[in-house]
């Protein structure tokens, strides 16, 4: 079953006279539970594509279709609800809320939804990610890898339908990286989460069901 697709998706950035086509006419489909890896050189538009697919960025043209419905029809509130219930996003630069502790950051989407957290599940996430001792610290007191793992936990906290991750293992050593990846694969299998992952790590890409390669905004299977 197709959970997410995009049609003629294009994003242009204007910097003075120059037009940068960060994403150029992408037509992609993502099946439920599928693990997709996106690779490509730096500046090729991977992050931009991920932002567009997850509704964090508005496309210049084209559309994103989630569960058969164009996101164009969603208003801001509906998009917000979609983001906190159905999507999880791990940023390349983590983007933790500086004023909130690790645990609070993790619980953010759950709390925004005014739900009771599934404690066993969260505990398990924390356990596997190895961040149990950092939970009551502020992000500014964490290492880059720790922040990244908190960001992953946050993205998974609400058991999203789709997890978008922008180089989630970029700051981790090989062993931790593998552990995080197997966690991602495990939850995706357990809860049927669709994984869309940007990575430079070919080892990671190998484990994906499908690998997309980007070059100058153009996406190839």
């Amino acid at each position, binding site marked *: 079953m197709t959970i997410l697709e995009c049609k003629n998706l294009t994003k242009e950035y204007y910097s003075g006279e120059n037009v940068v086509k960060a994403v150029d006419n992408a037509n992609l489909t993502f099946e439920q539970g599928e693990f997709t890896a996106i690779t490509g050189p730096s500046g090729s538009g991977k992050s931009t594509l991920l932002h567009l697919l997850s509704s964090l960025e508005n496309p210049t043209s084209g559309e994103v279709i989630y569960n058969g419905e164009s996101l164009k029809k969603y208003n801001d*509130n509906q998009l*917000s*609800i979609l983001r906190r219930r159905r999507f999880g996003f791990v940023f390349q630069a983590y983007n933790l809320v500086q004023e909130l502790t690790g645990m609070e950051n993790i619980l*953010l989407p759950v709390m925004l939804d005014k739900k009771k957290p599934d404690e066993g599940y969260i505990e398990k996430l924390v356990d596997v990610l190895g961040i149990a001792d950092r939970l009551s610290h502020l992000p500014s007191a964490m290492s880059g890898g720790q922040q990244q793992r908190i960001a992953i936990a946050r993205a998974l906290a609400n058991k999203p339908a789709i997890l978008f991750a922008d180089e989630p293992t970029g700051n981790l050593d090989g062993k931790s990286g593998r552990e995080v990846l197997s966690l991602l694969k495990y939850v995706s299998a357990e809860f049927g989460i669709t994984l869309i992952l940007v990575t430079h790590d070919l080892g990671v890409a190998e484990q994906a069901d499908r690998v997309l390669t980007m070059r100058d905004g153009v996406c190839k299977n």
Partner: protein
Amino acid sequence: MKTFTLSVFAARDLRRRKKQYIALTLGIVFSMIFSSGVLFFLSCVDASLEENRFRTYGKQDALLLGTTEDALSRLRSDPKIRAVGAAHVIEKVYTDDPAKGSAVGWLDETALQLAYPILTEGRMPSAPGEVAAERDALLRMGVDAAVGERFTVAAQAANGGGYLESIYESTYTLVGVLAGKRGALEKYALNRNVVIADREVPTEVFGLPALFVCAGTQTAPGGREILTAYVKAADEKNADGLEMYLSQTFANAGEIAATPRSAAGFSAMRISSLGETGQYLSLILLAASAAGVFGAMDANLADRKKQIGLLRAVGATRAQIAGIFARETALIALISLPVSLALSYFLTKLLIGLLGDEFVFLPDLKTLLVSGGFGLACIAAASAVPLVRASRLSPMFAIRGAEMNRKMRKKRIRSKSFFSVSSLMAKRRLTFARRRQVSVALMLAFLTGLAALAVPTFLDSYRSSARLRHDFDITSDFGRSGDAMYNTAFSGYGYFTESDRASLAANREIAAVSGVKKCSVNLLLDEYGDYFDTLALRGSVRYQSPPFPEKSMTKRQIAEQAFAKVSPEYEAFREKLGFDRELFSAALCACESAALEADYGGAVLEGRIDMGKLLSGEEILIAAPLAVGYDVAWSGDGLAETILPLDGGESALKNRSFTKTGTLPIHAGDRITLSAAVSGLSFDDWQKQNAAAAESGKIFLPDDLRRIDREVTVGAIVAPEGRVFLADFSLITTTAAFPLFGVDRNYVTLNIDLAGECDAARNDEMTEYLAAFTAGKQVEIYSDFEYAQYAKQRLRATLVTLSGILTLLLAAGIGVMLNTLSAQLREDKRTIGTLRAVGADARTVGSVYFRQMLAVFALGGGGGIAASALLFFGWRLYTDLNPIETNAIRGAVRFSPVPAAALCLLLLAVCCAVIGGKKRRQTKRSVTDNIREL
């Protein structure tokens, strides 16, 4: 490639952060407007006071009346004297009463400059036969000529020291009318040795011309001009010593009269009271504006912490970082300095213009320079702290925001496992950005506190500025002159005779004149009791003369002792007149029936007013509080006795603990006996002999002192406060019945009502007329019109100043708050983006800010209201505990939380609207736009 220096960086940064810098510059401009405006204003107050003094007395420091040519040339060559002018008096003129005449003369150029004549109409004379006259001189003579008309008066030529006997007629054409100066000089500069009875030879008056003819006019044949020197001291600071110097060096060169050094009258009062208010306000404003600049600079720093950290990381030194900030500040200051100076100059000018024409706007270059320097100093001081702090930041500390961790540990913040996002976020923001929130809250507290006190106080004073009853009062009654046992028992007490009254009433301008008479009588009592014991302590006659209490004594012991011992003076007086009952001395006040009705008709506490019986002397009124309370307390080494009239009765008594209280034992319908002590001695003689007796510690009782007793019925008890007779206990009768209680006397006060409405011109005329009428007497002239004008103007001035200041403050306050909040919003861009990315809707994000603002407003507004309430009630408590010193001011201040709350809500609405708009613009953009760092 262009070299990339730090100043290039600073300039580029300035351009990039244009909006923030505009806000910062605006803040600085505001505070500089405050500080320099205040200085301008204060300098104008001084200038206005001086101008007022010049207009009243002239610019000279001293006058030498009846001087000689020789003395004039000696004066001119004296190094201690800067300028000497001469008035040449050629004759004195009058219509029928020589005592109401004035001197005619001309002033040389210097004298003209020093005398500073103020033309209200027409021009100065330029041809023989023309005259410009002070208005009160014309009034005094009864000359009714208008400008351009001719008038003829009787004249006597000057003969050097006085005037020739022979009388001739002088005819002049009136070409100008001047504001009166002679009257003021006569009253305040020349009244030292004025002999009232001997007004026929007032050389002082006649040496000072009030009618001016053209220069060079000669005396009539056989005469010789009287010379008066106008002298200005060389050293302005030494002007006070000039009189002394002249009396030593120019002892026989004429009658010396030093010009008063301070201005007088209502306008001077107004100017100086505004100046005082201005000083206090300026202090507050300066503090507020410094806080504003500080807040703006601080916000700017916080905005750029990360940048500073990065710069430090790539190797910028502390000095270089400080240099960037200093350069930016200097640049901003240089832009804002001329702008704010110009703005404050014109704003002050506008404000001064609104205040009325006794204010002059004369800021000098010095004030301008001082203002500028002061403004710069303010900015430098306010920016110094963030500057130093900026350069002290350690690189990683700044980049990572490690501050937060420290605060987290310090505040023991616990991680939450269940929370409302907006409320937790708001809470954390308040904790982590405390300083900034506190500065906003302080600003708010300041504004609301001011609103809670200033607005109700102003409204109250506006309401209570009621119109007064008469147009003019002239009075020699300065307080409680009627309350000694017998010191008004003498003939000649009171200044105004029936004929004075009649001559005033004959003036066509005056519709009615009513008089007030006063004497003291003794109320005979079987025993004093608590009420009279208490009241007696307040009188000028001590019926009791207790020894000074010991420090160890309790309140009650002090009180007991105070009431125990009867003074020997009292006993001597009782014995002399053979009283067997106790005496309580009270003022017997008499006014005309209409005035009595108007004053007391609405103030009856007990009984009724029967005008027929009051006129026949069958009945009398008692104006007194129904109850009084007494308290005594140590105040340092002194003893503070408090006697309060407790008009409210029981409830007022309950609010305070008194050592002693008493209720009035006399009621309407009671018969009382009043006894007046009278003597044939003149008031002046008595004063002399009494002073002599007092020196040897005795009381002076004239041989012919006798008593006149009279039994009357108390018609009514009336409330004493706010009425014509400001004594705690007085007896009220009509002028018709007044002689029955002793002997008839002169009036102490005449109340004057003009025919038709009074206006400014008529007020001036009448004041000058009355000044001339009462010349030489120890009399005060009260113009109720002027007072009402004064009250109105003062209110208007206060209103203008207050609302101007409040508006500016409000603007500045809103500016600072918005600046701070928007700086935060900018900083929060990334946070907002993140929250949105994990699924927060726009409302949740807005709610974070709303909660934050609500908290700050609750803190600031509540704090402001609480602080002002504390101030107000603390002050009340203080005045309750120390009523003697502070009673007068106590009533002036009011407090109400309503305007403060309203202001708070208004500000909240403004902030919500602006911040909400900004937030909306931010959430409208795509999420990554916000997350992406610059």
